[in-house]
């Protein structure tokens, strides 16, 4: 039995899984703390792709610096969205949902007007391919996995070890009690939305050299993110990590035995099963 395709699938599954983790983390963070299903998350990811294209591909800024600028821009964009669009609707779940949907359509079509319908390509960031016993990984992907890990660890430390993180967790557990302890919900929500959006920007910055920037880039990413947070548990950061890696590995291994359409059936079948058997996901609260 030829094992190389299976080893290749492990490598592929982990590399794509890390991207999924990064995209889904922002979405789950916003849901967990703000209780908003942020449908605009995919379009923030798309804006991140355009930002990295602008800074890196067009203006020739160093890739790491361009990535940092993209993350910063998306942080500010997220904070502005929270302040202007979500805060006035706080507590109104359905209205917020519709607002997010509306924003995503506004952003997509604004990008279409601003950048045109043609895809924008982003040059290779870390050229070269590494191979071992017939298993390949490009330098670009390896860098993407490593940088993703750095960001995930950074987020983990922020949530667990900083005052801001403690406050975020406090608001997530009991917003009223946290407010009584002097935690400003306005500030926490603003920061949460900023960090969530920054993560979307980071994911876009890392994955865009493998794809194109285009106005509708975020749609697929959003769909995957929802699968991940349903499986991992809505609002759970470890859940998003498990869900992301699981999705990457299922996609990667599934295609070896099934065709792409069957893999979709299995994937969404699992989501349906999860919703029936354990609706809170692997790591979500009951």
């Amino acid at each position, binding site marked *: 039995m030829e094992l190389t395709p299976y080893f290749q699938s492990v490598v592929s*599954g982990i590399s794509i899984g890390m991207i999924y983790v990064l995209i889904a983390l922002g979405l789950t963070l916003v849901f967990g703390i703000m209780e908003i299903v942020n449908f605009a998350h995919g379009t923030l990811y798309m804006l991140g792709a355009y930002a990295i294209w602008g800074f890196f591909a067009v203006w020739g800024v160093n890739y790491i610096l361009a990535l940092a600028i993209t993350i910063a821009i998306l942080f500010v964009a997220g904070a502005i969205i929270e302040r202007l669009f979500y805060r006035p609707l706080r507590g109104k779940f359905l209205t917020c949902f519709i607002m997010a949907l509306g924003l995503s359509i506004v952003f997509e079509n604004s990008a279409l007007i601003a*950048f*045109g319908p043609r*895809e924008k*390509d982003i040059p290779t960031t870390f050229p070269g391919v590494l*191979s071992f016993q017939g298993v*390949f990984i490009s330098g670009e992907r390896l860098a993407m996995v490593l940088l993703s890990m750095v960001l995930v660890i950074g987020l983990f430390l922020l949530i667990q070890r900083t005052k801001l993180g403690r406050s975020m967790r406090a608001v997530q557990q009991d917003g009223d009690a946290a407010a009584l302890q002097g935690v400003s919900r306005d500030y926490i929500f603003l920061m949460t939305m900023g960090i969530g959006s920054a993560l979307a920007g980071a994911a876009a910055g890392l994955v865009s050299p493998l794809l*194109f920037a285009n106005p509708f880039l975020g749609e697929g990413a959003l769909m995957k993110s929802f699968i991940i947070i349903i499986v991992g548990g809505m609002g759970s950061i470890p859940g998003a990590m498990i869900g992301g890696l699981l999705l990457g590995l299922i*996609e990667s291994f599934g295609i070896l035995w099934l065709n792409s359409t069957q893999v979709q059936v299995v994937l969404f079948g699992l989501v349906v099963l999860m919703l029936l058997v354990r609706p809170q996901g692997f790591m979500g609260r009951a």
Partner: protein
Amino acid sequence: MKKTRLYLVLATVLSVVILITGAVCTATPTSTPIPTQAPATTGPTPTPVVLIATPTPGAAPTMGVPEILKIGNYGMIAGVGAAYGRAFTHSVELAVEDLNLSGGLLLGGKRYMFQVITLDSGYAVDTGRATGERLVNTEKVKYVFGVGTANSLGVQEVTEKNKVLLLTETWSNPVIAKDKVYTFRNMMGGDGQEASIYSVMKALYPTKNKVYYQSTDSITWRQGYEVSIPQNEKNGYQTVGIDFADPAITDWYPVVTKIKVAKPDFVDLFMSAVYAGPFFKAAHELGLHPGTQLIWPVGDGVQAALSVAGKEAAEGIYFTQEWDWYGKFMSDTGKAYAKRYKDRFGEETTIHGFLAYDMVFGLVEAMKKSNSLDPTVLKDVIPDLKWASPSMGKDSVLEFVDVGGRKAGMVYNQVLGQYKDGKVVNVALMHPTKPPVFN
């Protein structure tokens, strides 16, 4: 209050930055500038864009007041599919301008000028149906041009019922043209393309015959393969795999890993540039290519796809070019059309633009040939029509061939290109009914 103002200012600044970024980034020579003319965007009820050009002083003299002939024109102008829809609708407008500037149509001693009514049809059957109703019942057009499959199916419900000609660019011939006597497809699907491509492959790689068909999942591509795979098998090509990837695919590594296991000689890729570029890159990184030949018969957005793949990964890839940007096959009129398009709209035209432009002249040719403006007459003339393509290169004759029992599918020259030594070269000039001409 002060804080709210501050956020409003920040929001404004951010919006301006995004738009300026777009403007500045797209102003560079390697990228697409912002179009100089806004597209016709519409809400649920489409708003028409009406365009009439005035004849130049040097044009042929008119005989009294010319009569206006309305032409309906639809496509996806906003949202998904805008890349197709904009090129198409803009090009119908350009063709009509050119026709009017050259004096319009002289028929039976009477002069006719054309008026285009452009609507955003969206990309769905119901929005297409609404567009058809508006064009046919409100605007009273007798000839409709449009792009897109699902929306065209909606438009077609109205045009067929009202005996209005529909000249549409859709890939899915079995659905759009069969038994619909007023509908003609002015674009080749897999059926028209693949036979030509594999006749070239047979000459280049006589001992290789295993094909893996990889596409992104859509009704359009599935129908394309439904027709072309049996055709290729009949021509001696063995199918070693067929797969339709999720359109939300982020990573081609798993798919390419699977293809490698099947050990094909050729991988045939029905997918748009947005997928093809990353696929090429993954195929190169995993060592599938260059050992296996990658054939991309879609040919729209070639430069972008090759660019994202990178020079090394793109080396050796075959793709179709319905128009020939690079070599000897392009005519002066084609170059003039492409330049005018770019000057006017600030971006390159696409295959959809070229085909739309040519089909307008095809309609006029049918009117001249039949000496009639009546769609019930024109529908019987169009199947046997042959006209020289104004845009698609030298010696390119356009005609309709039998597809699904009706002569309703337009065929035309294509160029098989290959990326070689860092540039695009023409391998052969192809036509579905003729043997290939090698460069």
